[in-house]
């Protein structure tokens, strides 16, 4: 068995025991990336020289008996939506193609302090908007289980690099399911922590009231390691929770007694793939065999999740993305061509004596903004800016945005009621397994509807995890979702690890690249 086949937790033990060095690990993953990433295309940017230099420094420190951080030389991949000082951060957008952040995101700083070795930046849907990574302005990532299919998104590169054994740990972000859905599609484990658990400082904002950074790994134990390293209060993010961070890595192996699981009736309705339903019901039986009791309950507002989400998220996005103006950073349209175009239009309207068109003509600064953004953003980002601008505009604000905020509270109240009776909600992460590349790109609404099991958690601001619980007949991974009370990640991880000790779905690997 090669190094890249091991779990991060095992590798960390071997690093601490000096059975393996960080340099050897970086070399092993670099070799797989060189061999497989031409097919998977999970990474937008890699820097093996920098990773090796860093690994060497950590190995040296360990050899000298000096203190080494919690991640002790483990390589980690970072979604290209987190600012990395001196390393290009593009959000998979053309508008940020040359953006080099002047500072590190808090999560990146914490990873460095924990002595993680950054392997590279992973591909994603542009500005994290999408569920297939097909909205990247650079290239499409493929699913290691079937390269004709999508890896999910928006953290598609983050999940695919794990599934293909190109990294042992990966950082993603989740605004409406962007960690859990690709984790489900790629057969890995991923957590969306409670809103506020992890600092968002230096995370390029999509929808600020929903965005949360979280870990992806090959097991709950690996996710526990990574979450412990990145969680915690940050004075630079006033929405981050001022709460102590539990020792997730230590407690994750302790089982939970008297577990009460809630089976939400609405999660098993029309539209759910029958193989996924069977796998999820089987997983519930595993929990029962481990002593859990199961209660069926109703979340009457969950069916409004998508409609609520696709008002709130684009509204926040349209405001957050106003910063891409071609002035402060990023792409700017050709200024001379823009001024020439404007002059030609003015001349034309003057000749036609078209006073209406002349009065409406953009000023040079407005035209600079509009052309820069038209050329710099891809179709999905434009669609969401348009949608959000519309739902926030005068005359529509009450009917759409304000209404959605009220339904959001009703969705949260459904959760609060459910958690009075049970510890976790259990269900499928996605209604369908990974779909074919190109299958849904022409129908944005069809793509949005795939998010029905994940968006409500972000709206309510709670925590959730997706873990592998089987395969379809055609060999595609199936994800089981557990959702928890606010800041209950410690027990969430323990519940997930309990299942993973009783099953081996999370140890299955795609055949790509041969046996690891």
């Amino acid at each position, binding site marked *: 068995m090669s190094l890249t086949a091991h779990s991060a937790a095992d590798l960390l033990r071997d690093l601490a025991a000096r059975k393996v060095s960080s340099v050897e690990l970086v070399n092993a993953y670099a070799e797989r990336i060189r061999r497989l990433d031409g097919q998977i295309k999970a990474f937008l940017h890699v820097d093996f020289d920098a990773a090796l230099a860093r690994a060497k420094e950590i190995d040296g420190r360990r050899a000298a008996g000096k203190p080494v951080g919690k991640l002790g030389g483990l390589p980690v991949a970072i979604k290209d939506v987190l600012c990395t000082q001196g390393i290009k951060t593009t959000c998979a957008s053309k508008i940020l193609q040359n953006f080099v952040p002047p500072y590190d995101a808090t999560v990146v700083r914490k990873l460095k302090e924990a002595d993680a070795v950054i392997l590279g930046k992973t591909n994603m849907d542009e500005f994290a908007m999408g569920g297939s990574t097909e909205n990247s302005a650079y290239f499409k990532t493929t699913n290691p289980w079937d390269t004709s299919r999508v890896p999910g998104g928006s953290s598609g590169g983050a999940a695919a690099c794990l599934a293909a054994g190109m990294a042992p740990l990966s950082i993603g972000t989740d605004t409406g399911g962007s960690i859990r859905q690709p984790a489900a599609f790629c057969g890995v484990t991923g957590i969306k922590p409670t809103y506020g658990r992890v600092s968002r400082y230096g995370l390029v904002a999509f929808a600020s009231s929903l965005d949360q950074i979280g870990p992806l790994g090959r097991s709950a134990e690996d996710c526990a390691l990574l979450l412990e390293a990145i969680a915690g209060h940050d004075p630079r993010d006033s929405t981050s929770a001022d709460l102590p961070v539990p020792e997730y890595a230590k407690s994750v192996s302790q089982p939970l007694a008297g577990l009460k699981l809630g089976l939400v009736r609405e999660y098993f309705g029309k539209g759910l793939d029958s193989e996924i339903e069977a796998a999820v019901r089987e997983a519930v039986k595993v929990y029962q065999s481990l002593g859990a009791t199961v209660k069926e309950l109703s979340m009457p507002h969950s069916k409004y999740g998508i409609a*609520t989400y696709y008002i709130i998220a684009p509204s926040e996005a349209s405001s957050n993305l106003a910063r891409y103006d071609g002035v402060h950073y990023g792409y700017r349209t050709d200024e001379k061509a823009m001024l020439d175009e404007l002059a030609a239009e003015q001349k034309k309207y003057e000749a036609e004596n078209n006073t209406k068109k002349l009065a409406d003509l953009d000023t040079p*600064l407005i035209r600079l903004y509009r052309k820069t953004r038209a050329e710099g953003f891809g179709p999905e980002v434009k669609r969401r800016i348009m949608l959000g601008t519309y739902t926030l505009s005068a005359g529509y604000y009450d009917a759409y945005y304000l209404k959605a905020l009220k339904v959001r509270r009703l969705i949260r109240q459904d959760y609060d009621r459910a958690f009075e009776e049970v510890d976790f909600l259990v269900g499928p992460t996605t209604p369908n397994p990974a779909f074919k590349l190109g299958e849904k790109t022409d129908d944005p609404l069809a793509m949005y509807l795939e998010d029905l099991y994940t968006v409500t958690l972000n709206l309510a601001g709670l925590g959730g995890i997706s873990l592998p619980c089987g395969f379809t007949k055609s060999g595609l991974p199936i994800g089981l979702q557990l959702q928890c009370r606010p800041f209950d990640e410690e027990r969430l991880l323990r519940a997930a690890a309990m299942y993973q000790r009783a099953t081996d779905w999370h140890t299955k690997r795609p055949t790509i690249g041969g046996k690891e």
Partner: protein
Amino acid sequence: MSLTRADVEKVSLLGRLRLSEAELDTMTTQLTRVVGYVEQLREVNTDGIQPMAHAVEMHNVFRDDALAPSLPRDAALANAPKRDSECYRVPAVLGE
């Protein structure tokens, strides 16, 4: 309700996007479908429900009013598409 092409054109100005004729057509069709879908929220009774803008409803998070270093100007300007030694440069706003 259905969005008109004129609505979409107006929103594109508010959103500071310049859409091509073809994009305006596609966007009108697609936005109409999505807006039509989200209108199902009308059937939800929200009388007396307070809007929930944020998952963690914290208010007034204060910090000490202490001086700390901020991003140096050159670092802040480093990514600007057009700049001089101390400012971002934009096309003339007030005419020639």
